[in-house]
């Protein structure tokens, strides 16, 4: 006897009562009908705490509570909503900072002060703000879900107000609002379906986070390189618009710095940052610094193209899973407007751990390292939401997903890394050795790979990769036979490999010039370095060879640190040419 909705425990009843509490897992006895994955509210005094149904057995549903479970009691009342976990989509998402359940955090801080308060759910989109609406569709136009009704300006973008994605079939426009300013929840159009019933449409719509948006005419092959302005990415292991990549690495190898660099420099329209189960401090850096930084593409603040979803490690675990889905749904929403969106998820391992935690509480049969058996399919389905698509109106939009992985002990043979590697298009493996030697970004040049197109000529890339491999082989050999047992030619190969590594693969993330390198400059520098690698060299002794390369390395690094096209740039380039010319000449004379 716990029904409060008045339907007296019939099928329509949406009440339940708690019968067990184990951490963030609740067992709830229900009386009517429940849906798998529907949202329920657990009533605690005046507060209503969000929870999600994750298993149903007989009259009992298991719920993961998306908040702290403290002070809940057996026999506590539960309200089922019948709705899946969904996000609000509409103008006003950009520049926002949300938690995993799409609560705007700055607004929450205004209401609750320093600390997060459970059970407080605010509107994701501000309801009082007015938007300048321009209709695009006309009366009696035939539209389908995803088609544009009208537009509003949102910062630097033209935000399309679209026919709700949840509507099926064709609709004719019955009425459309005149140009003017409207709030997000005002009706701006009325659509009529074939049977003649009317659907009222506002600028706001809801979409369940775990279901991919598919309102497009076709999905294309990712082929255009997404510039990150990081040399080792764009030249060696590029990422494509609409593609996927992952950055696994042990702690302290520089995953987060890399992600921050990419989020600043990536050549996309919109960046969605999902800070999932990681440090709050890192989110703070992003959200304090981005408003101050200028986006070189637009001249506006970087924040104008950014949405941050943050569910840091001390925030409720179950909401972590929701946070990555919230992020990808927002990314897909902007893709529907013909924009290129990059989603950075840091870190997918924390999300996988949240799955593991829940699975353990459900007492499911554990797989490898106690991760549930469905881990792989869940990860694959998530990365598959990245795509470059042709929309109904012919424009292109893309979602690129980059996830970091934090493997236990830095060992890539663990379930999350392996499951991720199967489904991504590029792999940037960070290595402890390289970060210990301060060789940043610590992406391992021999282990990493990419299936996408580089910005330099393939034959040059092959030569560079061969130099690295050969140089590494010589280095390995030298460990056994020593320097004196190595021929001078091999030794030069080794030095060339080291030179390429330290002047091109490595990049100073904290230097104003070196931290972001344009495609043009990358091609120019790379050409120069390829010429150096191709130059035949002879030296009297290994010490001389080493001294030559040390100077060459330092000059090239100096070159990296000055603005392209500046007077100094040309000066250093001339010095480099001279050094190489002399060495090449002496090599020829000897021959």
């Amino acid at each position, binding site marked *: 006897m716990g029904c409060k909705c008045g339907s007296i425990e019939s099928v329509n009843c949406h009440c339940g009562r708690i019968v067990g509490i184990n951490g963030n897992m609740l067992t709830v006895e229900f009386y009517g009908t429940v849906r798998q994955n529907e949202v329920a509210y657990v009533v605690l005094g005046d507060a209503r705490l969000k929870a999600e149904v994750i298993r149903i057995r007989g009259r009992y549903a298991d719920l993961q509570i998306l908040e702290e479970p403290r002070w809940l009691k*057996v026999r506590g009342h539960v309200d089922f909503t019948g709705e899946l976990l969904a996000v609000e989509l509409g103008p006003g998402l950009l520049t926002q900072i949300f938690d995993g359940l799409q609560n705007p955090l700055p607004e929450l801080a205004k209401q609750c002060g320093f600390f997060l308060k459970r059970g407080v759910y605010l509107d994701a989109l501000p309801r009082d703000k007015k938007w300048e609406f321009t209709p695009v569709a006309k009366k009696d136009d035939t539209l389908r879900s995803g088609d544009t009704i009208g537009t509003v300006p949102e910062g630097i973008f033209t935000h399309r107000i679209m026919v709700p994605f949840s509507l099926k079939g064709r609709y004719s426009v019955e009425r459309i609002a005149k140009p003017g300013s409207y709030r997000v929840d005002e009706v701006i159009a009325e659509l009529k379906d074939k049977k003649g019933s009317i659907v009222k449409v506002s600028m706001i719509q809801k979409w369940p986070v775990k279901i991919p948006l598919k309102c497009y005419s076709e999905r294309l092959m990712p082929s255009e390189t997404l510039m990150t302005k990081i040399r080792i990415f764009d030249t060696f292991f590029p990422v494509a618009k609409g593609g996927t990549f992952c950055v696994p690495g042990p702690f*302290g190898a520089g995953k987060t710095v890399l992600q921050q660099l990419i989020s600043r420099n990536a050549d996309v329209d919109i960046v969605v940052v999902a800070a999932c189960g990681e440090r709050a401090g890192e989110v703070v850096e992003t959200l304090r610094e981005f408003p101050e930084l200028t986006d070189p593409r637009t001249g506006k603040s970087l924040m104008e193209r950014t949405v941050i979803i943050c569910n840091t*490690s*001390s925030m409720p675990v179950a909401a972590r899973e929701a946070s990555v889905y919230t992020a990808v749904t927002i990314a897909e929403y902007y893709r529907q407007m013909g924009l290129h969106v990059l989603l950075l998820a840091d870190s997918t391992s924390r999300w996988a751990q949240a799955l593991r935690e829940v699975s353990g509480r459900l007492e499911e049969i*554990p797989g490898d390292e106690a991760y549930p058996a469905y881990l792989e399919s869940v990860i694959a389905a998530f990365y598959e939401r990245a795509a470059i698509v042709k929309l109904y109106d012919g424009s292109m939009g893309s979602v690129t997903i980059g996830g970091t992985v934090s493997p236990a002990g830095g060992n890539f043979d663990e379930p999350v890394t392996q499951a991720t590697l199967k489904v991504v298009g590029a792999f940037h493996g960070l290595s402890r050795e390289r970060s210990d030697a301060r060789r940043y970004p610590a992406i391992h040049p021999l282990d990493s790979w990419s299936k996408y197109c580089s910005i330099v000529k393939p034959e040059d890339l092959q030569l560079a990769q061969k130099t690295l491999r050969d140089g590494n082989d010589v280095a390995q050999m030298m460990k056994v036979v020593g320097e004196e047992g190595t021929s001078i030619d091999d030794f030069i190969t080794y030095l060339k490999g080291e030179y390429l590594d330290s002047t091109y693969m490595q990049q100073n993330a904290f230097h104003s010039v070196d931290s972001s390198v344009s495609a043009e400059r990358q091609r120019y520098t790379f050409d120069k370095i390829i010429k150096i690698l191709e130059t035949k060299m002879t030296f009297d002794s290994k010490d001389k060879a080493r*001294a030559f390369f040390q100077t060459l390395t330092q000059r090239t690094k100096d070159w990296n640190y000055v603005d392209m096209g500046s007077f100094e740039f040309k000066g250093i380039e001339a010095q480099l040419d001279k050094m190489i010319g002399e060495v090449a000449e002496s090599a020829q004379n000897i021959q």
Partner: protein
Amino acid sequence: MRRIYNKIEQIAGNVITVIADEVAYGELAKITSREGSSLAQVIRLEGDRVSLQVLAGTKGISTNAEIRFLGHSMKTPFSKSMLGRIFTGSGEPRDNGPSITENMIDIGGPSVNPVKRVIPRNMIQTGIPMIDVFNTLVESQKLPIFSIAGEPYNALLARIALQAKVDIIILGGMGLKHDDYLFFRNILEKNGAITRSILFIHTAADPTVECILVPDLSLAVAEQFALQGKRVLVLLTDMTNFADSIKEIANTMEQIPSNRGYPGDLYSQLASRYEKAVDFEGAGSITVLAVTTMPGDDVTHPIPDNTGYITEGQFYLRNGRIEPFGSLSRLKQQVNNRTREDHRAIMDSMIQLYALYKESIEKQSMGFRMSAWDNKLLKYGERFEREMMDLNVNIPLEQALNLGWQILADCFQPAETGIPTKLIEKFWPAAASNGTL
């Protein structure tokens, strides 16, 4: 409503189960038996079966012990009168002072809204070159010291605490040897720091469950001081004992273990404590320095591994020295661009050269001939270890940077260091014995 029960259904490990009504998750109860009384905390509810973890352990508890539910969760007092005092893991006085019951606050409160945090900006000077120069400690940072038994980690912790300019020091001791507890107490007293310190001490002889509460008590009190604008330094030693206590309870509760017997939520458990480190917008800050002893000196063990992913860097303490490799302060970039312009260059190049020195040492030990370059590196490495790495070195940052230049100039030609030419021109010591421009 009945709040007192006399029938225990089950006693397993430190967890008891009773049949009771109207009990809240996380509620506290008082268990009274012949042995005395103890607090206990509700950790699972299944219908009317209530499982509680008993803070003082279940030794000697009889099935008819009295269980009285208190109607509130675990709390700690918070007041200025706690300064200079020493408490146990259940918040009782460990010194002979009176118990404090004023202004009780909840422990393990909600997490800070990220938008109310500010980017840390203040360096904490320690006088240890391996920290100040190479891995600068920053106010509001959370940083563990990874070490192994036998290393002087507690001494290092105490030294940093005394040298750091903070308002309040809170020490949370978990599974401490009694000697270590006395060491901390004495060193704080001797240096006159005890009057700005609060100690929560759980020794190895105390019941396991109390160990779990030590970080929560310490951090809850720290948080209140920080909200009042104080800069608080929290020292936690040793977090490995804390994690092991969590494992013990999880296993008693028959949770499915994930890795080497540790529960799947170890990461979240550790994170919810470490994440209390904060720099509040418009108020004070909490800096957390913790010791994690690595079982078997293995950094891939679940405790140090999970810790490393949570904290903002780590110091490796090995052979009485802070290792340059692996040690990292993630926040150093926030401050070392405003110390001196050569700070970053010195930091990077000295470590790169030290890495090369290690390679040369390896070659030497395998019996290969040493080249002229190797000999330079050997000379450099030896001086670096003696003049920079030794923990007895106690010099301010400026002096340490100058010393760095001197060592480089004594060992190398400028080009060999890989330092940008501009800095070389400005800082390379003129009267170096072995290097001219």
